[in-house]
């Protein structure tokens, strides 16, 4: 580290000039970050404990949360959104991350031709905005245009086609799969990086012991990339419980049909801003945001303090 600061002030009580430059270096980032991110977050948490009573904002304790969990209309919406959000997350974990790992495993096969091309191409959807992705898939799946049914006709599956986005039972799965399509690039890249970091000696040693191909992947590589799988899981978790744009674009703020694709992000938007004949409610919006905050915090803490601690890391 720096030579100015090698002496411990406790041992050598020499009066040092205040190092203003440290303050100057830290101040802009600290101020912007605190003012725009941390304070509003705290303020939002605080607002969830207040509500309007006779036109005045008063402290109501946990009454907003009680309303959120028990008011017939609101609670139904909330539990529905939370349930949908869980399904949304589970689909990502079961489809997006395994596909991402599989693609990364194939890409990292040594001396594979065109690997750069595949990698670049598969990452393209990840760069597009939800708005673009949402509308493209809406058009493709639209029965009016007929791209999806005619493509399914080629493989003789036309009878399976249905307006998936319009049916309550299939809409959530369809939207989740669109999101998976878009985001598969992220697990792919992170796992690919982790696979490249495995030293050749380890793989050569495995080959000497006759462990190749499939069993090499399962027995050697997979245990070594487990920490990265942990990271993509927590990234997926945070991203999913905070998602909004795709559902808003594809299904609108009401997250139809019949609320079947409503997740916490869209519920927050509708509650906070109001929609159609429903009035916007700031306190309730803050309450939902607080619940989302607690869910994300719980997930991140579980990851940091339980999963990451238990995970064995290998140093090369």
């Amino acid at each position, binding site marked *: *580290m*720096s*030579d*100015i*600061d090698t002496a411990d002030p406790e041992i050598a009580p020499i009066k040092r000039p205040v190092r203003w*430059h*440290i303050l*100057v270096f*830290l101040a*802009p*980032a600290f101020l*912007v*970050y605190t003012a*725009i991110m*941390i*304070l*509003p*977050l*705290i*303020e*939002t948490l605080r*607002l969830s404990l207040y509500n309007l009573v006779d036109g005045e904002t008063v402290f109501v304790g946990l009454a907003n949360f009680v309303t959120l969990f028990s008011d017939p209309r609101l609670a139904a919406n909330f539990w529905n959104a939370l349930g949908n959000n869980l399904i949304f997350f589970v689909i990502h974990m079961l489809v997006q991350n395994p596909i991402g790992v599989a*693609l990364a495993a194939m890409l990292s096969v040594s001396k594979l*031709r*065109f690997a750069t091309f*595949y*990698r670049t*191409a598969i*990452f*393209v*959807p990840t*760069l*597009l*905005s*939800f*708005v*673009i992705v949402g*509308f*493209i*898939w809406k*058009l*493709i799946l639209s029965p009016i245009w*007929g*791209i999806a049914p005619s493509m399914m006709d080629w493989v003789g599956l036309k009878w399976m086609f249905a307006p998936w986005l319009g049916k309550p039972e299939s809409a959530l799965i369809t939207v989740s799969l669109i999101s998976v*399509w878009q985001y598969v690039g992220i697990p792919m890249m992170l796992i690919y*990086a982790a696979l490249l*970091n495995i030293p050749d000696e380890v793989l050569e040693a495995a080959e000497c012991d006759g462990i190749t191909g499939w069993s090499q992947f399962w027995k050697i590589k997979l245990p070594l990339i487990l920490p990265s799988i942990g990271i993509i899981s927590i990234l997926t978790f*945070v991203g999913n419980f*905070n998602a*909004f*744009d795709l559902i*808003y674009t594809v299904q609108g703020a009401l997250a139809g049909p019949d609320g079947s694709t409503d997740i916490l992000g869209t519920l*927050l938007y509708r509650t906070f801003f109001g929609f159609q004949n429903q009035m916007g409610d700031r306190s309730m*919006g*803050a309450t939902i*945001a607080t619940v*989302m905050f607690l869910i*994300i*915090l719980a997930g*991140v803490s579980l990851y940091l303090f339980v999963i990451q601690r238990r995970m064995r890391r290998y140093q090369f």
Partner: protein
Amino acid sequence: MATARTSYLRAGLIHVALVSYTLIALFPVFLTLINSFKSRNAIFREPMAIPTPSTFSLVGYETVLKQGDFIGYFQNSLIVTVVSIAFVLLFGAMAAFALSEYRFRGNLLMGLYLALGIMIPIRLGTVAILQGMVAAGLVNTLTALVLVYTAQGLPLAIFILSEFMRTVSDDLKNAGRIDGLSEYAIFFRLVLPLVRPAMATVAVFTMIPIWNDLWFPLILAPGEETKTVTLGAQMFIGQFVTNWNAVLSALSLAILPVLVLYVIFSRQLIRGITSGAVK
């Protein structure tokens, strides 16, 4: 001999799998782009065909440019993105330098505090952010978006840049100090040029979510004057749902700049990810 054959077979299977997934990834984008250059009839009659002279038409683009102020939206997106990235890089690098270079009381705590935002999304503070922006009179200004995106980008930028700054040699900085350079000169003239590759990586990571964001433009700056491309396209398409030419052209216009930038910066981006910048 047998192993050689199985390895060929394996490589073949891998290529088949990767090519199929590449098609799945690119096909929707390709489909949108080709159909945006076709006449309405051709879009429905032969959606898969590449535009030919007889089906070629720019009617969609004409509608888009006449009806929506896409050039204005582009300008807004560009201003917001570029200014935010500039602030994120400058402030982020300064803070990262302070954290990685100096030992002072509260260093670790400050680092943890600034890293909180990597995991906790800024969106959750929206209720109070909007309130604050209303109080400051910043609603429907690009300044509001720049502020929010700067705050959003800083945590990851500081985290990545301080990792890189630890690798800059101490001898170099100490030589600078002996030659009488101030701490500011050491940062701006010695350290910054050396971490330029890391800065490029951070710039790309910061850019994508800003350019694509719908939430904050929708809430903080929905006015016609301050619409970004993402919001502009969203609203435009909402109005013109039945005009397929216009919708496809609007989508293509929103895709193109991202694709062009990606082609230019993809090496940088992928190297950034695979070199372990985000761990």
